[in-house]
């Protein structure tokens, strides 16, 4: 095995039995830390009748109460202000403030010490190194540096690896493309949505072909499911003439998995995180591959505001591949984040995951990148609509595309959609996370 492909060959190829021992010991450590230093956690665990000495096996870990985002919202805004008593360090030790994007409600604050921040960059260093980012790369980051954590840690990790980092913060989309060309950036980090948007602007407004006129060879993506949706991945790789690698992360968790050069699933960084998958209905632990469930996750080494058995609501599944050609022993998940437990909903009595639509839309070459799904209720009956954009050069194929789109959607989702073709360029464009699914039934309640 070529040790040069790993950020840390010691951990990334650790035999699985040793990895399990390490995880158990690290869980005991973070549990004890939180119990000792956080009123919130101590109260939670005392009420459940669990003390640090009680955690001796993985079965014991399953008895530890989960934390939900709503619980974090409830304590925030109180002392120690603004984080509340989940905080495990004196306020003056906090050096970093970030917050969640608020996709699912009131944003949650995330305090970090400098050591935590180093840790977050370390998690990202595993990611970028696995993607092939190296010292010789000039990395362009087209990200509005602000309170959202997004690519901040990617910036620090690229520096840690030794890359040259070009921050494209306040530039607009056109200026970012021109800057990438000017400096001959070789690597890029952005959400799938924004990668498609950048390519669209390059082609339609600047007359540039990203695959030929820019110098990007590798792209790190995340924050949305697109990087693991085959049709979206193919589309982005073709547009950019570059390899696209995905990872997953969240503000209150950290960056917990990554795709390697084999591009056959996402390795969970099991030396830094414990990932448990629970059945959506029964809550039973899922260990077998190919069965979707909700992720419960622990970050072993983040101290200021620990993340212990956090109920992420992200739906994932283990990969059937027990090994990887890259030689890493970290287990893989298949298909990235398949959806949010909150978003997976019944429409006309059928279980529907909004991400299933993206694979269909992006596999039809006559359609643009954008789409919008709207679920509503007409009387007592659910109604589902899909709005898409037909590319200008294919206007004469509207009926054929409509038929094909409707057919593929029925196969993929078992649902019949109302299809609406919008004028190209009229659906919303996004720079970070997109909001393409609207369930008006929830708003009506």
């Amino acid at each position: 095995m070529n040790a040069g492909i790993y950020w840390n060959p010691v951990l990334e190829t650790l035999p699985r039995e040793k990895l399990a021992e390490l995880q158990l010991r690290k869980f005991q450590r973070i549990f004890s830390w939180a119990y000792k230093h956080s009123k919130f956690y101590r109260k939670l665990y005392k009420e459940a009748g669990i003390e640090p000495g009680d955690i001796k096996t993985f079965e014991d870990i399953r008895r530890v109460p989960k934390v939900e985002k709503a619980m974090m919202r409830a304590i925030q805004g109180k002392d120690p202000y603004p984080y509340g008593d989940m905080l495990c360090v004196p306020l003056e030790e906090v050096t970093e403030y970030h917050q969640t994007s608020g996709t699912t409600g009131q944003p949650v604050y995330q305090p970090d010490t400098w050591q935590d921040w180093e840790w977050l960059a370390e998690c990202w260093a595993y990611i970028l190194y696995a993607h092939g980012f190296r010292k010789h790369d000039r990395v362009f980051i087209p990200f509005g540096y602000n309170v959202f954590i997004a690519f901040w840690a990617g910036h620090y990790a690229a520096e840690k690896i030794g890359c040259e980092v070009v921050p494209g913060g306040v530039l607009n989309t056109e200026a970012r493309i021109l800057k990438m060309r000017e400096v001959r950036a070789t690597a890029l980090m952005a959400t799938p949505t924004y990668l498609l948007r950048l390519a669209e602007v390059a082609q339609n407004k600047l007359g540039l072909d990203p695959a030929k006129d820019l110098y990007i060879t590798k792209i790190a993506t995340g924050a949305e499911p697109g990087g693991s949706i085959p049709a979206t991945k193919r589309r982005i790789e073709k547009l950019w003439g570059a390899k696209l690698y995905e990872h997953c992360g969240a503000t209150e968790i950290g960056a917990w998995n990554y795709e390697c050069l084999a591009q056959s699933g996402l390795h969970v960084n099991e030396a830094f995180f414990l990932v448990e998958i629970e059945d959506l209905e029964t809550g039973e632990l899922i260990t077998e591959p190919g069965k979707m469930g909700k992720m419960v996750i622990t970050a072993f080494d983040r101290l200021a505001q620990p993340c212990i058995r956090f109920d992420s609501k992200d739906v994932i599944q283990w990969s059937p591949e027990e090994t990887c050609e890259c030689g890493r022993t970290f287990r893989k998940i298949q298909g990235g984040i398949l959806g949010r437990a909150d978003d997976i909903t019944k429409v006309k009595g059928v279980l529907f995951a909004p991400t299933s639509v993206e694979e269909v839309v992006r596999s039809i070459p006559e359609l643009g990148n954008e789409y919008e799904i709207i679920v509503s209720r007409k009387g007592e009956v659910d109604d589902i609509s899909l709005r898409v954009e037909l590319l200008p050069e294919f206007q004469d194929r509207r009926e054929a595309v409509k038929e094909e789109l409707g057919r593929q959607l029925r196969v993929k989702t078992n649902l019949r959609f109302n299809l609406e073709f919008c004028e190209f360029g009229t659906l919303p464009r996004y720079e970070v996370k997109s909001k393409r699914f609207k369930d008006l039934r929830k708003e009506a309640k």
Partner: protein
Amino acid sequence: MSEEYPLEQMAQLISAIRRAASELKELGGGIPAVGRNVERILASVRMLELNISDVLNVTEVSGGE
């Protein structure tokens, strides 16, 4: 692959760096330019502990206190 590396020796050196940095902070006697830079060194030392030392024996939580 972990057997290919002198982990014990590396862990001892990491521990020595932690001790040396902490002593330096003490000697600095409250000089901000010493204390704060040592804090940053210790954060990096912690990453070495997570990457190397923990494999042998999970280290105590440090930093942020």
